């Protein structure tokens, strides 16, 4: 009996390790070529609370070119190749905060059925207007500092735009997907799609101003594939 138990545990462990051994990673950077557009300083005079929240000028975040010549806030995800596979929603909550009269993060990904928690960290009122075309659109008042609201999306959509109708410079984008294989390029322009099963996929990079680009990539079991995207200004 003891021998059977140890054997079962060993087989189970092997299966778990083997599954992760069959998963690959796609990583890379989103590069930017050409002249970076001149950043527009945001005029926050319309709300004194927003004005005092920043000691330095705040610039529009639609195009953020990093110091190393890469592009931030590019949503990279698996567009096709996962058909027929189902993935449970991630356990955690994705948080979008209204802080200093700006959305943080500006671009993010979320799975179907996963909670998006929207917070108001500002001592002023905001409204959160989700302009989704596939899921039900909503427009919610958040007048109190510390207020939190949770919402879920029930249909995939790339991308859902969020705006604050009170503060017109505020905007964010959410990629709503059926699977967890997405990433947003960071301050160094890099992205990473982890634990991808072996196979051939179409990977798409989306930017709010420069549009989309796609690449086909084949992922080996337990391997890392590197690919870069380049957007021109």
């Amino acid at each position, binding site marked *: 009996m003891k021998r059977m138990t140890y054997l079962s545990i060993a087989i189970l462990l092997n299966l778990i390790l083997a599954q992760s051994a069959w998963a690959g990673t796609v990583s890379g950077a989103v590069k930017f070529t050409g002249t970076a557009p001149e950043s*527009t300083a945001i005029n926050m005079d*319309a709300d004194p609370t927003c004005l005092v929240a920043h000691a330095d000028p705040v610039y529009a975040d639609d195009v953020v070119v990093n110091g190393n010549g890469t592009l931030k806030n590019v949503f990279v995800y698996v567009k096709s190749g996962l058909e027929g596979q189902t993935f449970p929603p991630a356990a955690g909550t994705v948080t979008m905060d209204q802080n200093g009269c700006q959305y943080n993060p500006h671009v993010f990904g979320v799975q179907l059925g996963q909670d998006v928690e929207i917070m108001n960290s500002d001592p002023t009122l905001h409204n959160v207007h989700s302009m989704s075309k596939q899921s039900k659109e909503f427009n919610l008042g958040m007048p109190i500092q510390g207020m939190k609201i949770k919402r879920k999306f029930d249909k995939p959509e790339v991308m859902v735009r969020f705006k604050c*109708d009170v503060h017109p410079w505020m905007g964010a984008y959410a990629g709503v997907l059926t699977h967890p294989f997405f990433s947003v390029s960071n301050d160094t322009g890099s992205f990473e799609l982890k634990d991808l099963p072996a196979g051939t996929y179409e990977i798409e990079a989306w930017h709010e101003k420069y549009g989309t680009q796609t690449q086909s990539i084949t992922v080996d079991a337990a391997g890392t594939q590197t690919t870069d995207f380049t957007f021109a200004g």
Partner: protein
Amino acid sequence: MRPERKPRILRLPANFSNAVQKSDTGRGQPWLYRFSLLVTVATLFLILAGGLVTSHEAGLAVPDWPQSYGQWMPPMVGNVFWEHSHRMIAGTVGILTLILAFWVQWRETRRGVRRLAWVALGAVILQALLGGLTVLLLLPAPVSIFHACLAQTFFCLLIALTYFLSGTAPIVFEDTAALKSLQRFAGMTTGFVYLQLILGATVRHTGHAVTPHIIVAFLVLLHILFLVLKVSHVCPSTSRMPKVGASLGMMVLVQFFLGIGSFVFTRMLESNYAPRMGEVIFTAAHQTFGAMILGTTFFIVLRAYHHE
């Protein structure tokens, strides 16, 4: 053979002049007339306020209705200022219209004028409900367009009511054929202006119908310029109508350039994180001038049918 009669709704009273002048209301109740004029001017101001809401993209800055963020007076920050100001002005116009309607019932003897006052009150109540619906249903285009067009219609109702309360003497026309031509042409022009307003509201709230709006703009421009000529030719100078016509001509020329400015800011310049000041000014002024042009052409129709 009996002459064919127009449908009842299109028939003005056989003796329209008597119907307007029968009562001494205008001369005997100058304060009622002045109050009606005040409500009419306040309505034009309300139309401008509504235009500023759309131009600032503030239509959903207050997500609840009739209160604003659960209060009757929210913090007037950001675009809440434009949206809530519009609601306050609308509430004021609603109350003024209510007072006007009851005042007319109290002091006015002509049944048609009393009914018109009730119709105006019904229109402003409907307009308030439409405003609430646009917010609660997240700005569906048909509701927003209807809200915009009803505003203009309500404005015309008030112009008519104010005119009937003014006690203005009818115009004496010597050339009956020319008068009938003026009546038809003024009516047609008003119809085209109203069509242009519907198209303008469609452009504002859907982004579509820009080409038809531009085409009809040229049609309206020509029609109004011909109308100005007709008014100066047909109406005696003592009626002041040639001056009204000249004002209309100036307005439509200004409107044409406001339309060009609106097009440049909304269609040709690269979009900004928020509407530029120039875009707000041109589009809101373009909308308001549209209301003034409609009101003036409608006034010309009223005067053309009020004759001896």
